[in-house]
């Protein structure tokens, strides 16, 4: 596999993000086209300049990207729809990155768009007998991992709740988040149980939302100051023997390295940097404990170190390593196919220094991680 970083440099030159939330009678082409128009304006580009579209979504049915582009206006360009569960737009971003790095295109649009079905996530990434047995409750699948994480790391239920409190505090500074109100530790600890030991506020809310990013090769960058370089974009699936969601871990052949660590290691190699070089992180807080083990698996600290670091404020907006500066999935909400794109928009906004009240001073390099059913793990590193 040829490292993409040794091919042509690729830059993000414009972003567009809708305000995420639950809306009445909204369609993916409404919010998708809104995000695209915002990204074009941001990049000072015309729609007819775009040479290809990669669109990530999960629940929008057949040819979802085409449905959005029909609204914007067809120009005959290839539109590729990417369904890769919660890594859909991260996977779409990687395809766009590859197509520019390989000099196939110069200007490509990445879209993540989702109008979520109401109620719990209707995941069907299970065998029929597993669905009939009720194994498709993702909070319960995460609860099984949480039970083991708490035992091996010493994390307490209060630690898990503090992740939500931190992220909702950040989200209060994000005008595009679904929830813009901070919450207290007591509110989390007293919310109703969804799947023991996880309570409602340990689980991320869902949302409708869209995110668009425009990627260009170096010679198509109009304003270098606003062009943020893609340092790495990786994608992995399960390593043999790993337990996650529908997968049960092998007792005989557990993997030496899991798919999250693998995706992070590949990203650091591609970017030529390490965890200590990263200024800001968008971690995958689909449930609050998953942010903790995610930070450990991404190499920011050793197993069991994330809960004490969290308590010390290490991952706060003004901490040593700010995590989920926009409030994460906990505040933004989780429109599955758009989530990676939303994470990347936040990294770009921070690198531009345009994050307003939640700006991290001097942020030069950021990492975003999304993962989910499949499983998939997608890591992206962006730098100034």
């Amino acid at each position, binding site marked *: 596999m040829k490292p993409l970083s040794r091919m042509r440099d690729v830059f993000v030159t414009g972003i567009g993000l809708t305000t995420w939330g639950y809306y009445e009678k909204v369609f993916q082409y409404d919010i998708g086209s809104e995000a695209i128009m915002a990204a074009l304006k941001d990049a000072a580009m015309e729609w007819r300049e775009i040479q290809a579209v990669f669109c990530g979504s999960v629940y929008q049915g057949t040819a979802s990207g085409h449905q959005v582009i029909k609204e914007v206006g067809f120009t005959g360009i290839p539109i590729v729809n990417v369904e890769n569960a919660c890594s859909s737009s991260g996977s779409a971003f990687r395809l766009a990155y590859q197509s520019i790095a390989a000099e196939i295109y110069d200007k490509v649009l990445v879209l993540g768009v989702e109008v979520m079905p109401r109620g719990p996530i209707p995941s069907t990434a299970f065998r029929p*007998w597993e669905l*009939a047995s009720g194994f498709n409750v993702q909070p319960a699948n995460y609860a099984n991992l949480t039970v083991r994480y708490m035992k091996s790391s010493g994390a307490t239920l209060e630690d898990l709740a503090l992740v939500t409190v931190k992220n909702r505090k950040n989200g209060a500074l994000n005008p595009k988040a679904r929830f813009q109100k901070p919450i207290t530790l007591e509110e989390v600890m007293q919310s109703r149980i969804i799947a023991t*030991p996880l309570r409602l506020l340990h689980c991320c809310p869902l949302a409708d939302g869209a995110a668009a990013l425009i990627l260009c090769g170096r010679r198509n960058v109009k304003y270098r100051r606003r062009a943020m370089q893609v340092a790495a974009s990786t994608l992995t699936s399960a390593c043999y023997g790993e337990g996650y969601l529908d997968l049960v871990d092998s007792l005989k052949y557990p993997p030496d390295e899991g798919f999250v660590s693998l995706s992070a290691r590949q990203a650091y190699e591609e970017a030529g940097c390490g965890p200590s070089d990263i200024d800001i992180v968008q971690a995958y807080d689909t449930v609050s404990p998953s942010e903790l083990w995610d930070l450990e698996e991404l190499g920011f600290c050793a197993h069991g170190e994330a809960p004490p670091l969290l308590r010390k404020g290490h991952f706060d907006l003004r901490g040593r390593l700010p995590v989920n500066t926009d409030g994460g999935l906990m505040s933004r909400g989780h429109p599955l196919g758009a989530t990676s794109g939303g994470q990347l928009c936040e990294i770009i906004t921070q690198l531009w220094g345009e994050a307003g009240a939640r700006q991290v001073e001097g942020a030069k390099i950021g990492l975003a991680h999304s993962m989910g059913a499949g499983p998939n793990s997608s890591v992206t590193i962006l730098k100034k």
Partner: protein
Amino acid sequence: MDNIRNARPLEEGLWTVADGGLSLLGHRCASCGEVFFPRRKCSHCAHCFRRTLEEIYLGPKGKIASFSVVMIAPAGDFYRGPVPYAYGCVDLPEGIRIKGLLARDYLDILAVAMEVRLSTEVLYVSDEEIPVEAFVFKPLKENRKDEQ
């Protein structure tokens, strides 16, 4: 085991009653020893990729590795059993961890490392009024204070 006449399993081929006892139906790879449940459809071992899979009976004993009591109904109409319910990971002595339902009458006493035994339970009654059974893990008698 519930003794229900005319009950049908959730899915054929998950378990059997052999030699008077209930067992899950799995595969073991004769080359690398890896164990699979349910039986694999693909003819090679998912670990070593050799075509040396043999059928194996799993259970009935197991130990809970992790579990969760679920308080919400799953999305979609796939699951038609009661809520709350519990499922978790159970380690079997044959060297495999599997995901399974935990018997509904014992949600309050479930614990990690608890020893359990394979059983079946009627999950729901179908529209044709046929009881539909699932395999479940039940705490051993010594853990069940409420049993005779």
